[in-house]
């Protein structure tokens, strides 16, 4: 694009950063695709919840319900072949990165057709070929891995970047500290995306931190950082788009804190004694899907009817995935020692 067009680009300010409103320039089809992804996540998690209730999931799951805008907004702001690392609460990142819903669901049910042939389950879904370097059962465990992937990008000069998702809880792990420091001194192309959903399991962020903004940890590493509304897809998209550009040209890592909320219990057995129903209700009122849908409808990109059709389509797709998963075979016991070594 010519320099002369520059002045016309719409800019917005997010937590002190002047950021181009790239969202407004997107094709309508992409804007709708993002809504579809959010629906996929929402209904995937609803279906998963049903499986849990019906005792069909051996193990636990951590649902992403209510946090959809962060995964979708961030991942749509980077390229298809960029890398991400995910967390124990990883279904959303995985779906946004383009995972096949059937294969994901099969993994949750421990089936041989799943992403990990039933060996990993919810906490270890990965699809290295598509750039998804995996969920991780260890809180903070993927921050070093993500940083290493960014080192690969730099060394191979492959033009890719990494988005490293992690929770507020993970920001107090040692690996957070050592990794971000390395990314900073080496100017690695990585976006650290901290999903601050108010709690790490039962521990409120305000009890685990003595700072107002987790993104202020940028001062410890000499990097950029800011705090955004994680339930606003447009804000997430624009912020990540901006730093996507910065990181890709070597202007170092960034720490983005995305404020959001987990609607469900931490995992399958959580009485949620540490929070009030009112608080949850308030956050449900900030439903990222409703908010985004309203924007699309207000901007006449979508009409109510289309939206209902879209959601219906997604629901039947999820039912399909559940069916595929249920009907898939379990692995054979004899496969247990396969895949330990290459």
């Amino acid at each position, binding site marked *: 694009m010519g320099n002369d067009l520059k002045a016309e680009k719409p800019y917005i300010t997010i937590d002190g950063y002047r950021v181009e409103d790239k969202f407004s320039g997107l094709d309508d089809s992409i804007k709708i695709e993002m809504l579809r992804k959010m629906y996929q996540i929402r209904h995937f998690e609803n279906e998963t919840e049903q499986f849990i209730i019906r005792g069909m999931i051996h193990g636990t799951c951590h649902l992403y319900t209510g946090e959809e805008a962060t995964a979708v907004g961030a991942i749509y702001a980077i390229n298809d072949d960029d890398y991400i690392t995910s967390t124990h609460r990883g279904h959303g990142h995985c779906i946004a990165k383009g995972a096949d819903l059937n294969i994901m669901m099969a993994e949750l049910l421990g089936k041989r057709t799943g992403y990990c042939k039933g060996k990993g389950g919810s906490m270890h879904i990965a699809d290295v070929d598509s750039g998804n370097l995996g969920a991780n059962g260890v*809180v903070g465990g993927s921050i070093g891995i993500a940083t290493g992937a960014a080192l690969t990008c730099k060394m191979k000069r492959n033009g890719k970047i990494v988005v490293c998702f992690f929770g507020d809880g993970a920001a107090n792990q040692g690996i957070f500290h050592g990794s971000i420091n390395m990314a900073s001194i080496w100017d690695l192309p990585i976006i650290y995306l901290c999903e601050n959903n108010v709690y790490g399991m039962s521990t409120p962020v305000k009890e685990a931190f003595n700072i107002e903004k987790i993104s202020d940890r940028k001062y410890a590493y000499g990097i950029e950082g800011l705090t955004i509304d994680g339930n606003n897809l447009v804000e997430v998209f624009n912020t990540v788009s901006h730093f996507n550009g910065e990181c890709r040209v070597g202007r170092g890592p960034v720490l983005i804190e995305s404020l959001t909320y987990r609607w469900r219990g931490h995992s399958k057995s959580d009485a949620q004694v540490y929070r009030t129903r009112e608080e949850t209700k308030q956050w449900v009122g900030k439903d990222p899907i409703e908010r985004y849908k309203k924007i699309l409808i207000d901007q006449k990109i979508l009409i109510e009817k289309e939206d209902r059709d879209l959601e219906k389509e997604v629901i039947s797709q999820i039912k399909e995935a559940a069916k595929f998963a249920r009907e898939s075979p379990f692995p054979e016991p004899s496969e247990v020692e396969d895949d330990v070594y290459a």
Partner: protein
Amino acid sequence: MRELTYLEAIREAMQQKMREDSSVYLIGEDIAEYGGAFGVTVGMLEEFGKERIINTPISEEAIIGVATGSAITGMRPIAEIMFSDFITIAMDQIANQAAKIRYMFGGKAKVPLVIRTAGGGGTGAAAQHSQSLEALVAHIPGLKVVMPSCPYDAKGLLISSINDDNPVIFIEHKLLYNNKKCIQNVPRQMYEVPLGKGDVKREGSDISVAATSYMVQKSLEAAEKLSQEKGIECEVIDIRTLRPLDIDIILDSIKKTGRLLCVEEAPIFGGFMGEVSAQVSEKGFDWLDAPVVRVAGRNCPVPYSLVLEQEMIPGVSRIEKGILNLLG
């Protein structure tokens, strides 16, 4: 006496020690309002308050560092690492600090620290939440390692561990916490089960079976079946404390039976039972009528899918087969 679950027995040990000794306190993740990931500390916040039930950020390395520092300055911390897999995050603090401080200082410090953690698989929690990593800590001089298999022992061993002036790794098993099959009469008062003493959980004369943690229960099941179905009488020994190890109780048993099967949940290669086997083979060579055999986890991470997980972790039938093979 009341019937208690394993979980209740553990909680009671902590409660009673905390009532008695104000230097005992708990530190760990989600142990306050939440009551711990497995519910072990439910109700303790209410009784002892935030000052003594210290809920932490997610920083396992710092949890153990802080507990160690407080132990050498006069407190008696009980640190909880939610899943035993995460002792790896704190491994420097455990193995290089807590375990060695006394020795490095020429005996001029003591480290009365208990690290409680939940080990083992069978819950579908997959490779990073299901490990049995006792071999990693049992090898470190300066540590004691305890793995109770039932409520009575759990209470008594935990009280002994809290009373001990050394760092103790106390590994509980997730499938025992609320296991209705092994509820026991547990004395109301405080009592110690000594560290360094194994326990014969079932007498028998045909073969000895030495096991740890949940595998003791599985071995007992296998023993009952074989007794009823084939009249084979197994002596089942609960190792209870891996370090210090009570090797004599095993040697005494093989003098009688001439045969030993070792059963553990961890992957067999490099597991703790290698030590037991080596010691028994060396010290009991003349009494053994057959080689010491191990039944243990397969040489892979713990898989997620139920069918695979059941294949990875030894079950009753694998133990039975091990016993029959060794006898036949």
